């Protein structure tokens, strides 16, 4: 077996195992930590596909920033397995239906796809190539998504400020 294949199978099994642990852990903090392991495994896959930039950005943004915020919230809420309220039957049914339909879509899209033979050309995932593609071919979607992020940020600030205002008016009354 060539070494790329060995790495691929190791990373894939690690990713699937960690993803299962995310779901099966009783403790939400453990779930978050397993999710970080999943991101690491996926970053490894990106490196195998010769997309180093994507791999490291995946680590910085997801493992480094977003998961820290998740951990923050969960730690401060101090959620424990025994405090978790029992969900009603209907909730569970709705979860099964929505999860099942997601699964259906994933299977339907991936069923007829042949494997993408990516990453063979040298330099395809490198930062120069990526920058050129982003700012020439995909410049409009790129700019639109950045405006989307900006509006989300402004929205978050406004929500935060509004709440403060309400408290102040309540106090003054």
């Amino acid at each position, binding site marked *: 077996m060539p070494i790329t294949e060995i790495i691929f199978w190791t990373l894939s099994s690690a990713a699937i195992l960690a993803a299962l642990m995310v779901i099966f852990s009783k403790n939400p903090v453990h779930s978050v930590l397993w999710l970080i392991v999943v991101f690491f495994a996926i970053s490894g896959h990106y490196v195998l596909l010769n997309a*180093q930039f994507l791999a*490291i950005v995946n680590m910085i943004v997801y493992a*480094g920033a977003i998961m*820290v915020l998740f951990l923050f919230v969960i730690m401060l809420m101090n959620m424990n397995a025994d405090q978790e309220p029992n969900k009603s039957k209907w909730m569970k049914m709705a979860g099964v239906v929505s999860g099942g339909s997601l699964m259906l879509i994933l299977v339907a899209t991936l069923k007829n796809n042949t494997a993408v033979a990516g990453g063979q050309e040298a330099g395809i995932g490198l930062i120069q190539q990526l920058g050129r593609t982003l700012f020439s071919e995909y410049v409009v979607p790129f700019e639109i998504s950045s405006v989307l992020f900006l509006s989300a940020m402004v929205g978050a600030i406004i929500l935060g400020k509004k709440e403060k205002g309400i408290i102040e008016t309540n106090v003054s009354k």
Partner: protein
Amino acid sequence: MIPIHLLVINVWFGLEKLLLIGAIISFSLVVAMYTTFAERKIAGFMQDRRGPNRAGPFGILQPLADGLKLFFKEEIIPLTSNKGLFVLGPALAMLTAMLTSAVIPWGNQIEIAGRTVSLQVADVNIGILYVFGVVSLGVYGIMIGGWSSNNKFSLLAAVRGASQIISYELAMGLSLISLLLMTGSLNLKSIVEQQMQGGWGGLLGWNILYQPLAFLIFLICVFAECNRTPFDLPEAENELNFGYHQEYSSMKLGLYLFSEYVNMFISSAVVSTLFFGGYDIPFVDETTLASNIGVNLVALLGFLTFFAKIAFFLFLFIWVRWTIPRFRYDQLMDLGWKKLIPLALANLLITAVVILALNK
């Protein structure tokens, strides 16, 4: 590129890298050990006392004594703590402190028995981003340790530390972008080589001359990322008893305390690489010197120069610690978000405009 390196596994290549990794790790640990000693000596000098002077001549064996003491102390794991994570915390802190050393070019190549060996473990073309990736993972050591101790003070300190590190990461990244605009490369080795091209044997090529503001912002952020005074809020002993490692004892506490010094050492190396020419010897043209006295000797001299730069920054860390008092939490956030980030953005804009004007 990483995949090629991974795929072509050559026994000699592997052995070389393994030896290099071993050398760098043991070197970092020894330097970190003696930084603790230097810290106590300099603190003593600044406060008009002698500092440690009992173990060995001038107290030179003090770090060994400290380490042995930590190893022999009783290990206590709190009953209510989350045991697995409690052990994982200090291990992660140490691991993330050491990981960055892989991409730092510690010197130019050396020649052993006809083979050219680079003094850099991984010459990846996204070196800086790798540094950022590891820095952003550094939060987990603090957070996991603080949370799993199951102590309110530890948790508060961990949350403080995490928010501080996340906030200062932004300004750090922004200040570096203006530097990267100039170098046009994310590869740490090529950044060093570009600086070596400058006049006066490389001195005029150092990035500090062109990006002083970026350097200042970066340095402040490095202090914050290392949790050093004036940003040592996660371990503010008079507010939080001891901070995120309050429940730790024995060598687990030692690892936490020690990882701070390893972090200082590695960050000093990063700052010297980015802004002070790395292993560049000022006033000396390395290529002509190499033809006179040989490549290996030049690599050694380069490494010594690099180490002198690192030692200066280590001294700066200690100097600042014993000079400036700690920030209040709101002052810390104010400085990070309202001062450093706009300043870094302005610097970025000016750099971009100047580069655009000069190219046309």
